[in-house]
């Protein structure tokens, strides 16, 4: 029964659109026209939630992409004699091409430079449309022929409402499925925690490109749907001002879920109609309203509704937020199949990780100076040293986030230095982060599922559809993720939002995410920084257990020396870029050279 409820949540937005069609059955034709255009706006809003909300990419090109879809479809019917439905396919291609084109330079930039790139696309596109009179009718525009579907020519507003509504609902459903499935999750991870995402196999640029392409396809589709009803296409109605108004849809509606697109798109599109009584003051009201909403309701209208629902009552909140909440995680239970627990193996002599004479310069600073260390299979090895000793640089080189200037690193016999960070998970290396880098907007379960590493763009898209049909993440993914959460002591938090956890629990979550792919080596970056002594002790026990149960080697960088001494079997000490000592913790810490490193020339009395 819980499975069926999830399906419903995903179809929610699409069903809402169908409801709008139903609502339009009994009203006059002008209202039907308004509803139809509102539905088109809803589709654009949903598409922009994917791009602006999830991928956090600003775009000023939406107007031109709608134009491309509208013109492509119209020209296909006019010049190629294609049937309407086929022409829609051409609009989809036009959108995909536009999205890809914008993403080529676009994914290199963020912020205002990205806005500029999209502005260039928008302006050049419209100018070209306006200039190509031979093709597009230029500034005069072209008449859009009536849409004929399966021999039935659509002329009435009701007909348009049904046609637009059904097709928009279908596309919205696809967007919702993608948004709520692994594709949407990985996209959010990529946009919010680039480094952590790459560490777990998420190709950030690939996902951002896909976000551009997917949203552009939907926006172009919306343009093509609206075209026959608008009847006359002229380039100026798709100008920069239009792009700005479209950009407002997700921001006013709420950027985290499709419902934001619905509320923002539908609401803002209908607003002018509601403001008709004030006629001339329409635009002023509109603009002021947008400003007020963004100033006082940073989460948009969906946030406003959520707060309102919370005030109304618990049951209201439950249902409403379940429907509105972004990608509500699957809420059923499944017994976690515990992986077989091997007896703790004695340390083997073979070296899992071999770091030899690694060098790194930052201008004049010799950050890492011919550093070498070795981590045997199944070992727990520590790396300590005062500030500026080079531990972090060496650590980042090993995890793939910093290029080395010299030396070599071997992992299980494979050379590691030339491998991209996101490919290291496949070899069996995962990591945690000093500033805990969980994907805050996702549930714990989703965090760990991403940790599995099967995060290719196309793979994730396919998995999104699987998830929709099954009503939940795939059985295997769920099992493995829950087992990992269980190992970390977080089984009961599977549905909680990662961002809401305490720091200690977030560190456990990072561990669960790091072990779910059954790696051979985990790189731990200051795993107890900022936690209380009690939590540090719990984490220490957890690490020891994980190491024993799953034979996972660990390399731990830490400042908390008592912690490291009780966790690691061997230690390397770094100072001024070099490894100055290596051996068992008790021995190493007592060395005068090490004491000097921390306390200066005279050392403590």
């Amino acid at each position, binding site marked *: 029964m819980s499975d069926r409820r999830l399906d419903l949540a995903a179809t929610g937005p699409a069903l809402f659109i169908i409801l709008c069609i139903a609502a339009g059955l009994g009203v006059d034709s002008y209202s039907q026209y308004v509803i139809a255009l509102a539905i088109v706006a809803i589709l654009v809003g949903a598409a922009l939630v994917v791009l602006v909300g999830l991928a956090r990419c600003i775009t000023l090109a939406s107007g031109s992409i709608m134009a491309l879809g509208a013109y492509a479809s119209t020209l296909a019917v006019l010049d190629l004699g294609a049937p309407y439905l086929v022409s829609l396919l051409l609009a989809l291609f036009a959108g995909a091409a536009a999205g890809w084109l914008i993403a080529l330079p676009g994914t290199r930039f963020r912020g205002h430079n990205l806005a500029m790139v999209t502005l260039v696309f928008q302006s050049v596109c419209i100018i*070209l449309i306006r200039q190509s009179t031979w093709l597009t009718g230029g500034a005069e525009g072209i008449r859009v022929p009536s849409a004929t579907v399966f021999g039935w020519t659509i002329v009435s507003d009701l007909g348009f409402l049904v046609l637009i509504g059904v097709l928009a609902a279908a596309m919205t459903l696809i967007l919702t499925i993608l948004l709520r499935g692994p594709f949407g999750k990985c996209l959010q991870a990529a946009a919010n925690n680039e480094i952590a995402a790459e560490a777990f196999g998420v190709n950030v640029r690939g996902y951002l490109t896909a976000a551009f392409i997917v949203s552009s396809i939907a926006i172009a589709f919306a343009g093509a749907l609206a075209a026959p009803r608008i009847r006359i296409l002229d380039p100026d109605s798709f100008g920069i001002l239009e792009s700005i108004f479209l950009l407002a849809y997700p921001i006013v509606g709420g950027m985290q879920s499709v419902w934001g697109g619905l509320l923002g798109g539908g609401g803002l599109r209908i607003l002018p109609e509601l403001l008709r009584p004030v006629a001339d003051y329409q635009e002023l009201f509109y603009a002021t309203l947008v400003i007020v909403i963004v100033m006082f309701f940073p989460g948009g209208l969906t946030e406003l509704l959520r707060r309102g629902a919370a005030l109304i009552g618990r049951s209201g909140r439950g249902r409403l937020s379940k429907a509105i909440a972004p990608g509500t995680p699957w809420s059923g239970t499944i017994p976690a199949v515990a992986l077989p627990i091997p007896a703790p193996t004695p340390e083997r002599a073979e070296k899992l990780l071999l770091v030899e004479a690694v060098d790194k310069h930052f201008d004049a600073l010799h950050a890492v100076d011919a550093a070498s260390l070795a981590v045997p299979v199944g070992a727990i090895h520590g790396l300590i040293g005062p500030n500026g000793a080079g531990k972090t640089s060496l650590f980042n080189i090993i995890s793939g986030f910093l290029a080395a200037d010299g030396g070599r690193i071997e992992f299980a016999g494979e050379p590691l230095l030339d491998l991209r960070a996101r490919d290291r998970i496949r070899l069996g290396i995962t990591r945690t982060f000093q500033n805990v880098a969980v994907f805050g907007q996702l549930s714990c379960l989703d965090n760990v599922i991403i940790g599995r590493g099967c995060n290719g763009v196309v793979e994730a898209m396919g998995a999104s559809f699987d998830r929709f049909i099954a009503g939940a993440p795939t059985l295997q993914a769920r099992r493995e993720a829950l087992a990992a959460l269980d190992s970390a002591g977080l089984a009961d938090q599977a549905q909680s939002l990662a961002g809401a956890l305490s720091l200690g629990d977030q560190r456990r979550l990072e561990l669960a995410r790091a072990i779910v792919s059954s790696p051979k080596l985990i790189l731990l970056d200051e795993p107890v920084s900022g936690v209380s002594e009690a939590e540090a002790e719990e984490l220490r026990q957890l690490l020891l257990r994980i190491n024993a149960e799953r034979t996972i080697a660990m390399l731990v960088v830490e400042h908390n020396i008592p912690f490291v001494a009780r966790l690691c079997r061997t230690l390397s000490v770094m100072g001024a870029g070099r490894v100055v000592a290596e051996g068992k913790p008790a021995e190493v810490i007592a060395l005068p050279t090490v004491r000097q490193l921390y306390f200066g020339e005279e050392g403590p009395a």
Partner: protein
Amino acid sequence: MLAELGPVLIAGIKFGAIYALAALGLVVVHKATKTVNFAHGAFAMLGAFASFLIVVRWQWPYWAAYLLIPPAIGLVAAAIEFLILRRLRRADMFTVVIATVFLGIALAEGFRLTYNTELLAVPSPFAGAPFVVGGVYITRDTLWVITGALLAAVGCVILFRRGKLGRGMRAMASNIRGAQLCGYSIDHIYMLAWFLGGVLAGLAGVFIAPVTGVSVDLSIAVITAGFVAGVIGGFDSPRGAILGGLLLGIAESLSAAYVSSAMKNCISFLLLFVVLMWRPQGLFPERTARSV
């Protein structure tokens, strides 16, 4: 050939000087506060409109426009920083973009509602015979716009770079924490930056009013040109803003003359694109010392 090129370049420099002022206003605000004020064009439009009121409606002397309007718009801008932007200091970039964009729209609408005509004409400050330089005609007001706007822009950059006023803004632009530790208050500096941005926008408006007339389109045209010029020049570089503005004006004029008037915007945008891809820091960025 020179006789042909001359007027084109002059026209380019004239618009370029105005773009320089517009870009400078944007850059100053962004440098100090890290936000782009998309209502900047609307401020310029208000300045142009105020110019119409002073010169045409109320028949005051022209110099009153140049003297009174920039600080007035500056005050409006500072008030907006205080009332609206201060609340949005912790908001994400999208929210600030939308807020300032729609603020610009609201202001433009406000103007349109007050004065329902399409275009308001404003006379030039100088009438009289044009000058002839090297066989090229330069009208008096063209010369005024070029010298006046450029002088104002350069003067502003000098003030920014040398003066005590600019020091706080530059310090905050360079290192917010360091600036606070010197005693500079974020609230004061941000409001000052917006004031200065408003002054520059108002001034640009007064210069542009006789050239293009006053209309709602002005608000979009100025922000677009200012933004593009700023990025081309280097968005955190005041001198880049001036040079970028001039470059944009000249490029537009050349394309309008030798390609087509319709394509001139296209070419400007392509120029912008090339700069973004090849030198994203801009063509004339601030020279920064490398830290040791």
